């Protein structure tokens, strides 16, 4: 077996620190997700309205967030707000803000897509049975929208978890940062540590995202 320098993980509290880093990453993404989902629902519903001002505004927001690399958004919020408004946001809060802005945009687009994918005839046939607007929304449109939405939004959650690896750029010590620190600290004693530590990081990301993907697959199968 090649030397992967795995022994560095057992030095001191290294492995626990790595797990702590993973928790930071998960904390940021889960917080952002729980903010993005309700806001994204709202955004998506606004986007399906036939209101020109709303359409232009929401479209602009969505496209702006989309074309911006997440890293640039992180810099804008972390450094920009200090420079422009004198705010002193800490790294983790900035990350939550950026991931929420991003998540809301993506979620909004998913909700919009799911809403318009429900054929108008479904609404009409429900109306023809004498259902009122709220009844149609509650029993026909929303259940079908949610079924389409859940696999897509779960995909978004895993993307968010993976993208938290960027927040080390604004000084947040998450898993990737911890792993770099461990590798740096053991450069002399275990020069191969990068292999083992990054392999571990890979496995930990996998363990965090895989169950979520499995859940999405199960739901997709049950509701197809």
């Amino acid at each position, binding site marked *: 077996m090649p030397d992967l320098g795995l022994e560095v993980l057992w030095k001191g509290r290294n492995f626990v620190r790595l797990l702590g880093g993973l928790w930071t990453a998960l904390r940021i993404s889960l917080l952002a997700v729980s903010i993005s989902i309700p806001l994204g629902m709202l955004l998506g519903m606004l986007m399906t309205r036939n209101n020109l001002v709303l359409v232009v505004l929401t479209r602009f927001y969505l496209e702006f967030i989309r074309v911006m690399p997440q890293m640039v958004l992180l810099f804008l919020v972390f450094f920009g707000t200090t420079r422009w408004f004198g705010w002193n946001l800490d790294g983790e809060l900035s990350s939550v803000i950026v991931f929420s802005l991003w998540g809301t945009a993506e979620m909004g687009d998913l909700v919009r897509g799911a809403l318009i994918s429900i054929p108008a005839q479904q609404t009409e*046939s429900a109306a023809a049975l004498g259902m009122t607007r709220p009844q149609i929304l509650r029993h026909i449109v929303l259940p079908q929208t949610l079924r389409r939405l859940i696999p897509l939004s779960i995909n978004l959650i895993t993307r968010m978890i993976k993208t938290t690896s960027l927040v080390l750029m604004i000084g947040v010590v998450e898993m990737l940062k911890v792993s770099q620190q461990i590798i740096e600290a053991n450069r002399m004693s275990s020069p191969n540590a990068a292999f083992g530590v990054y392999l571990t990081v890979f496995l930990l990301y996998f363990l965090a995202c895989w169950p979520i993907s499995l859940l999405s697959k199960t739901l997709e199968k049950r509701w197809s």
Partner: protein
Amino acid sequence: MAAELLKIEHLQKSYDSHVVLKNLSLFVDEGEVLVVVGPSGCGKSTLLRCINALEPVQGGRILLRGRDIHENEKNLPKLRQQIGMVFQSYELFPHKNIMDNIILAPIIVQKRKREEARQEAMELLARVGLENRANDFPRQLSGGQKQRVAIVRSLIMHPELLLFDEVTAALDPEMVREVLDVLLDLARQGRTMIIVTHEMQFARAVADRVVFLDKGKIVEESAPEAFFSRPQTERARRFLDTFSFETVRKSG
């Protein structure tokens, strides 16, 4: 003399500048089967959609038992319970099984007891030969089966008037029959129906009266035998000719 159930007076319907129905007047008596035929784009589906108030109209009145259906928009859900409509594309709710598709409206709209609704649903399903599919989902059914469920779904509301909008147009030929048989059965029970169809043989068999619609106007209105064997207008003759073929190869 049967009572008049539906009366349409000078109905005017257009999409922007395109006029679809021009000053159209029509009545349907209780227990009558009215078949509407005509070339595509003549406005027959739009007519049905107007009767069920799925389309706003630009002029004229539609009276169900003497009451204008547009009199009060708040009343629309109530009114639509009296008018059943079956669509070309079935429009079953894909997230609910067959039983739930059928009993949803009775329960939430008419506030009926679940057990009672289930029982009637089973009886109606048995009538269309689908009593063993109650727990299946729409995606597991063939087109003809889905359409029969859609018919049951509107029957359970006990509507006074049934509208059928080209209900066999999306079906494979061998499934058309099973759906038309259900419609014939309903006609025998004395249901009031307006049927839009392209199945001329069927129209002839089921209709009490045939209305031929072209370019948003009623061109001809007569008993089925008269319409199909001796159409009065040139336009109707040409339309009916498109359904018959000359024999190409004479034998012998």
